[in-house]
Each structure stands twice: as C-alpha cells, then as structure tokens.
C-alpha cells in the first residue's frame, strides 16, 4: 500500500481524530479546542490540496476492502471527488473560524465542535466515496452528526426542527437504501465509473432501471431539498448560523446534489439516463423547484428563512445543469456546486453577524445596517448580486454557462427558467439591500461601533470577507484553469465522453 492510497484515509482521519479529541476535552479548555480545530482544518486543507494537485497530474488515489459479502468499502479521489472535497475542506476552515467567534461564551461548545468535526468527516467521506454503498455510509453518518447541531440550542423550537429534520432525512435514507439494494440486487456492486455501467444494457432492464432511478433520486432529493421534499430545510433555520452555513452551503444539501451527480454520471451514465428519458423528468422537477423556491423566498420576512428558500431554489440549478446533458450545460451545473456554496456561505455568515452583533433576525429590522456594519454589508451585497447573476460575479458565470448549454442542447425553455429565477432573485434580494444601505436606522443598536475596532469580532468578520472576495475572483478569473470553472471543465473532459 502506498502513501498515495492512504491520502484519502488521512483526509478522513484528520476530522475524525479532531472529533474524538474534542469530545474528550473538558468544556473549559476553549483555547486548546480551538487550536485542535484549526490545526486539523489546515492539515486537511493541505492534504486535499495535495490530492488536487495529484489528480490534476492525472494520478488517482484510492483504497478499498471488502466489508460485507458482495460489497466493498471504496475510497477514491477522482476529479469530481476533489471538487466537493476541496469545497468542504476550505469551507470547514472558514466555518470553524467563524463558529469559534460565533459561539463565544455559549455553553456546550465541546459538544458542538465535536459533532461539527464529525459532520465534516462525513462530508469528506461523501466526496471520496468510490461506490454507492460507501456513499450511503457517509450519507447516513452526515444525517446523524448534523442532528445534534440542529438541536444545539435545546429550545422547544430547535427540538421540533430537529425532529422534522431527522424524519425527513432518515426516511430519505431508507428510500435511498432501498434503491441501492435493488440496484445491487440485479447488477452487483457498482463502483462509480465515468460513463456509468449501463451503456449497453439489455432492453428488459429498462423498466427496473427507470424505477430504481426514481427511487434513488427520491432518496437523494430529500437532502438536495427538491420540491416536495424540501420541508425540513426552512425549519432547520433555528440552528446557529455556522450550522446553517454548513447545512446550506457545504454539507447537507450539497451531499444530496452531489449524490445525484454521481448517480447520473457514474452509475447510469449521462447518455443512458438521457436515453431512458429520465433527465426530462428530472429537469422538469428541478425547474419547478427553482421557480417555487424563489417564489416562496419572496414572501418570507425572516432573513434566514428567506435565505433558506433561496437555497431550495439554487441547489436545483445544479440538477438542472446535469439534465442539459451536454458538456457546457453540465459544466454550468457542476460549477454551481462551488458557486452556490461560496455565495450562500457568505450570506449566512453575514446573516449570522447581523443576528449576533445587532440582534437582527427580521428583514425589516435591517434598516440602516450598512452604516453600522459596512464590511459585513459589503460582503452580503456582493453575494446577493452574485445570486441574482450580475456580471462578473460567480453566479453570473453559472447562469451564463448554463444558458449556453441549454441552447446547445436545444432546451430553450431552460433560458426562460433562468431568466424568471433571476428576476425573482432580484425581487427578493434587492429590497433587502435597499433596507441595508438606503434606509434610516429605526431603532438604536444594542451596541454602537467604536472607532479603532472592527464592526464585530474579527473571527466573525473575516470569513465572510474572504468568501466574498472568493466569489468575485471566481467570476473574474473564470477562464483560468485553476478556477472552479476550469476544474469543472477538467472533470467534464474526463467524465463525460460526449
């Protein structure tokens, strides 16, 4: 076994080990805990960077061993895996920094950071999983490790949200398991493989394959918050802001979306899925979700709930991109995995800052917040414009690429969906920006800003600024080979042989 084979294992172990250490640390050892957290996060980022570099060079890292008769445990670092792994590793570092600031002086931090690390470990596992079975393993682990984060506050509301969350996700997990078991039943253990496994399937397999596809998507769709299965997401907003950032931007919804990507690309194969007529249905649902989510966001008065519905809408961009079934469209979908992540994490960081510093939860309380917290507000504004799709920000890149892809695939109606969605985005973000920047302050803030100090704690301020900077760069430098778009094009070149 070479070191290369062990890289994915190490990447997993960093956060697992961190979790174990943190759980055993006494509650009062805040500094030591923060140190452990940050060291593990940096270490993991380095490891992932190393793997990204290797994968870029055309190497592959992987390890597998038999687990249950007929089933292998497979970890494999390919280009697609690295997209998600890179996303989660870098956002883990930032979210950790943010969470340290956010949870200052609050109880149960040991518990929080322990489960937080477990959650990141599961995300890493989801990224590196080399077959559906391993994917499922980490997928369920993610469910379990996020539950304590959702109910962290321990209030009745939080506990109710936790219950909703767990009912949705575990049911989804059971459905997914059902699908995996069926698939396994008629074709054995299926490693993820570019091009899929069913390129030349026999005709009598068509009906069961279609059925299994629907079941798999239904199972994964719960986490990806596809419309009728999205109910848990807005409720889970009671969780602390770093958790919301994590749930929305990186871990949970992306796990669902990423799973759908894996199933479509590497189990069925894009062409087969298309040939079975499955992508049409998926595209229709995704389009509906996009519109529905945006429309619902419009009527929310709570900032975090508005952002939550926005997530419902945005995640389906990824799925819609896949359904375009052409290299460009697919690239647009995949790149949104990163772009949506960076934009949404910024928005949630900012929402958290408003709530933590100024006690703002509702949108109509935001009046004049721009002058009190300019840094946060700038970041928020950038991310909001990104969401709307203003050039040259990240969101624009997504929408542009997808639009091109839609034209290439002859699915012109997708353009209409994109336009309507952008208009709706504008409709629910612009009033917020208006309040932040152009309205007079209504009530006195709990604490006024003091000269010579940051508008809020540095731990809280820097993460959104960094992510905001990233989303600008991702837009500006989209054509560079190391940008998300560049990497996605590499994936598409390797994965989709169109």
């Amino acid at each position, binding site marked *: 076994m070479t070191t290369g084979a062990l890289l994915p294992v190490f990447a997993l172990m960093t956060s697992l080990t961190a979790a174990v250490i943190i*759980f055993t640390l006494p*509650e009062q050892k805040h500094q030591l805990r923060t140190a452990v957290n940050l060291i593990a996060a940096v270490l993991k980022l380095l490891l992932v960077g190393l793997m990204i570099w290797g994968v870029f060079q055309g190497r592959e890292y992987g390890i597998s061993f*038999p*687990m*249950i*008769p*007929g*089933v292998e*445990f497979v970890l494999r670092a390919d280009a697609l895996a690295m997209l998600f792994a890179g996303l989660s590793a870098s956002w883990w570092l930032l979210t950790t920094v943010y969470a340290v600031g956010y949870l200052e002086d609050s*109880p*149960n931090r*040991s*518990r929080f950071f322990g489960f937080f690390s477990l959650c990141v470990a599961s995300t890493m596992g989801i990224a590196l999983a080399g077959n559906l*079975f391993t994917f*499922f*393993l980490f997928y*369920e*682990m993610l*469910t*379990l490790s996020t*539950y*304590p984060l959702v*109910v*962290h*506050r*321990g*209030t*009745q509301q*939080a*506990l109710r949200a*936790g*219950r909703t969350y*767990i009912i949705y996700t*575990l*049911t989804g*997990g*059971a*459905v997914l*398991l*059902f699908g995996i*078991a*069926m698939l*396994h*039943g008629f074709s054995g253990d299926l490693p993820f493989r570019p091009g899929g496994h069913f390129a030349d399937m026999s005709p009598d397999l068509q009906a069961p394959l279609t059925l299994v596809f629907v079941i798999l998507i239904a199972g994964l769709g719960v986490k990806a918050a596809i419309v009728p299965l999205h109910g848990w997401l807005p409720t889970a907003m009671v969780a602390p802001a770093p958790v919301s950032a994590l749930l929305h931007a990186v871990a949970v919804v992306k796990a669902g979306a990423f799973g759908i990507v894996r199933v479509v690309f590497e189990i069925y194969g894009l062409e087969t899925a298309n040939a079975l007529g499955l992508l049409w249905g998926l595209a229709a649902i995704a389009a509906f979700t996009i519109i529905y989510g945006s429309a619902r966001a419009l009527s929310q008065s709570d900032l975090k709930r508005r952002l939550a519905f926005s997530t419902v809408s945005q995640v389906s961009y990824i799925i819609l991109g896949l359904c375009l079934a052409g290299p460009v469209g697919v690239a647009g979908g995949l790149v949104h995995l990163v772009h949506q992540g960076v934009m949404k994490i910024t928005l949630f960081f900012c929402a958290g800052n408003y709530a933590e510093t100024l006690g703002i939860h509702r949108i109509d309380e935001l009046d004049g917040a721009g002058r009190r917290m300019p840094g946060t507000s700038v970041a928020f504004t950038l991310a909001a414009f990104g969401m709307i799709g203003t050039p040259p920000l990240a969101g624009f890149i997504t929408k542009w690429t997808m639009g091109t892809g839609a034209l290439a695939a002859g699915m012109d109606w997708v353009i209409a969906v994109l336009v309507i969605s952008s208009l709706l985005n504008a409709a629910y973000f612009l009033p917020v920006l208006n309040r932040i920047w152009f309205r007079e302050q209504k009530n006195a803030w709990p604490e006024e800003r003091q000269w010579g100090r940051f508008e809020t704690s540095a731990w809280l301020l820097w993460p959104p600024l960094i992510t905001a900077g990233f989303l600008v760069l991702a837009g500006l430098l989209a054509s560079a080979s190391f940008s998300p778009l560049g990497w996605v094009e590499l994936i598409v070149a390797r994965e989709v042989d169109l």
Partner: protein
Amino acid sequence: MTLWLMAGLLFTPLAWAVLTLLAGFRRGRVVTWLGIAIQVLVSLALWAVVVRDGGFQYPLGGWQAPLGIELRVDGLAVTFVLLTALVAAASGLHAGFYLDPDKQWHRYFWPLFWFLWAGLNVVWLGNDLFNLYVGLELISLSAVGLVALGGQSEALRAALRYLMAALLGSLAYLLGVALFYGEFGSLSLSGIASALGQDSSGDGTGFALVLMLFGLALKTALFPMHRWLPPAHGIARSPVSALLSALVVKGSFYIAARLWLELGAPLGSLALAQLLGLLGGMAVFWGGWQALRQRKLKQVVAYSSVAQIGYLFLLFPLTWNTTEAAALQAQQAMTLQVISHALAKAAMFLSAGNLIMSVGSNRVNALAGVSHFLPFSLFSFGLAGVSLMGLPPTGGFAAKWLFLQASLATGQWWWLVVLLGGGLLSAAYVFRVYRASFVEDSNIDHFFHPARRLEIIPMILALLSLGLGLMAEPVLSVMALTFANGEGT
C-alpha cells in the same frame, strides 16, 4: 491441546460457579476476574483452532453419538462462544462495580452468572436434542434467578412471568424431542438430519418441529408471545438485563435456527416459514411502537429487544425452498444480526444503567439536558442506537443489507417493508432518548459521573458493534467453517 481447550471451556464456568458460590460478593468478584480471563482466553484459543483447522466433533465421555452426547464445534458455534465470552465478560466486569457489594444477596449474582455462561456454551455447542433441553433449562433457571435477585415484589412478578413462559416453552420443546426420538430412535441432531436425508419418512415429525419452534419462539419472545420479556429485562439490574437481552434470548433462537436449517427443508412448510417471518415482522413494528411509548428508559431498551428479535425470524422464510445463494445470505444476515444486536444491546443496557445511576431516575424525561455534561455513557448509548437503527457502518446495517439482498433475491419483497420501516421506527425511539438529552430548559444542575471503568465497558461494546459492519466479511468467513472431515452441514 484441543481436548484441553474443550475441557477448559466446559469446566471453567461450572467450576467458577461453585467457587463463587462459596465466596462472598467481593471475593467472588476477584475470583470472577480470574475466571473471566481464563474463559476469554480459552474461547479465543478455541476460535483460533477452529479458524486454523476447521471444526470437529467432540464426544463427551468418549461415547460417540447416538449412544453418548457429541458436541459440534464448528465455525458458527465458536463464533457464538467467543461472542458470549465477550459480552459476558463485559457484563461481569460491569456488574462487579455496579452492584452494591453490601447487599447480602448480591453474592448470588456470581454463581448464577457463571451457570448462565455455562448454559450458553452448552447451547452453542450442543448437537444432542435432549442435551440442548437441559442447556435451555440451565439458562432459563439461572436467568430467572438473576431477575428475581433482590426479591422485590415487581422483580418477583417479572421473574415468575418469565419462569412460567420459559417452562411452557421448554415443555413444548421437550415434547418435540419425544416425538423425534420416537421416530428416529436417536437424539443427535445431525443423525436425525442424515436419517431424514436417506429416507424422507418424516411423517408426524412435522408437528414435532412446529412444537419445538413454538416453544423456542416463546422463549425467544417472538411476538405475540413476547409479553414476559419487557418486565423481566426492564426490572433486572442493568448488567443482568444486558446478559438477558444480548445472549439469553439468542440461545433459544439459535436452537430454532439450527433445527430449521437442518430439518426445515424436509419437515417445514411454506406456511410455517411465512408465518414465522410474518410474526417476526409484526414483532418489529409492535416492539418498535411500544418502545416509542415507554416512559422508563430500560423499558424502551427492552421493547427494542422485542423488535430486534423480530428481524431474526426473517431467516425462516428466506431459507425455505430458496436458492442456495439467497439462503446463505439470509444465514449470514441472521448471524450478523445476532452478533451486532448482542453487542449493541449489551452496550445499551449497561450505559442505560450508568445513566440511571447518574441522574438518579429511570425515566426517559429525567435525561433532560444531560448531554450538557457530555456523559460518556450517552455516547455509548447513542452508538449502540446507531447499530439498532441499522445505519452504516454498523453490524446492524450489514445484517439489514444482507436481509434486503436475500429478500430481493427470493422475490419476497414484502420483507423490505419490515426492514426499512423497522429501521425508521427504531430511529424514532432512539432519537426520543437523544432528544430528551438535548433539552436545555431543564433545571438539572448536578450530575453524578459514574466511575470511568463503568463507562468504558459499554463504550467498547458499542464500538465493536459499530466496527462489526466493517469486519463483517472476515467474521462471516469464520461462521461458514464446517467440519474438517467434511461431514455435518
């Protein structure tokens, strides 16, 4: 070497039962530590021998079957012997610190504990129908004695209920043995199986099989004959509950499974197989639903046993008249379910005992806010719960997966409802406990941390049950080992 190992395996628990009977609680504890060490080592060595050389028959007293009693030492048997050694050692060590040494009657825990262990080994290794009966009685009576320990009114009620059920079950089994002896003139299970194979004139013994399965199902607390279990397992001291749930119910199930696998094909019927599976399925739902409604923590765990036992009975429909591959999967699933449930349930009862000790109440609601103190036992409880829910990578998941595959392969898709629905239901009752522990607005301000040694034991068991899913393949390869000389299964 092998002969000595076997002698040690059979002798140690019985001898230690006598030794501890003569000692008081504290001295008995020290003596027990030594015994546990010996017994675990012997079990490990025997396991290693079988892994290396394959299984063998062990004629007791030098008399071959059918005249004498032969033990069959194959892969499955030694796997269970080792499992018993692990779980019993954990429960025994835990009990040594958990039970109050100053209560006079706790000294009797040790001899009963050792007799129970001895009885379990008799059952795992037994190949003689009557010997199995005696083994069952050995287990039942010592288990009843352990439940009744302390002699409080509720405990006595539970113990009596348990005793009555166990006696009825044993008699039904014995009646089946009587019919088998009348038909075949032999008591050796493999002898009967080969006689059946030669001239399948098993007329009349079909009813005997039904009787035995019924009796054993009663002792295993299969729905709707489960009503004795929750009071008994709920009221016993936690280490005792761990032993009962983890091992004792498995003993009678194991006999039922062996009977079925050896004699089920000629003597069973489709209706019987499906009926047993159906009852198992109903047990999964009923037990889960009841667990969700219990107020006492240990009652939740006890009802969860009723549910988990239900899964085991899917073995029957999935091995009757099915393809060899599917039947093998079902057997593997059963084995994994037995092992993982034993580990997880023992971990759960032991940690439940610790939690009860910590908060001073046995109610689920009393756990409000305890996660604030990060009790180690809550983690153990949680990890064990993951295995019960059947989420990966636990042993419970591996078992569920194999059952799923077997159901799909045999076209008996209706069991999927049981497997998936049951998992969700168990998630519901496990999360009810988690949820309680996360409540913040409680006025709990003091929390008694039990000794680390009490907390570490359930954690080890829980981790083992968690890791079983990752090690399932090697474990199952041992289970498949039969006899070196090619006879037997």
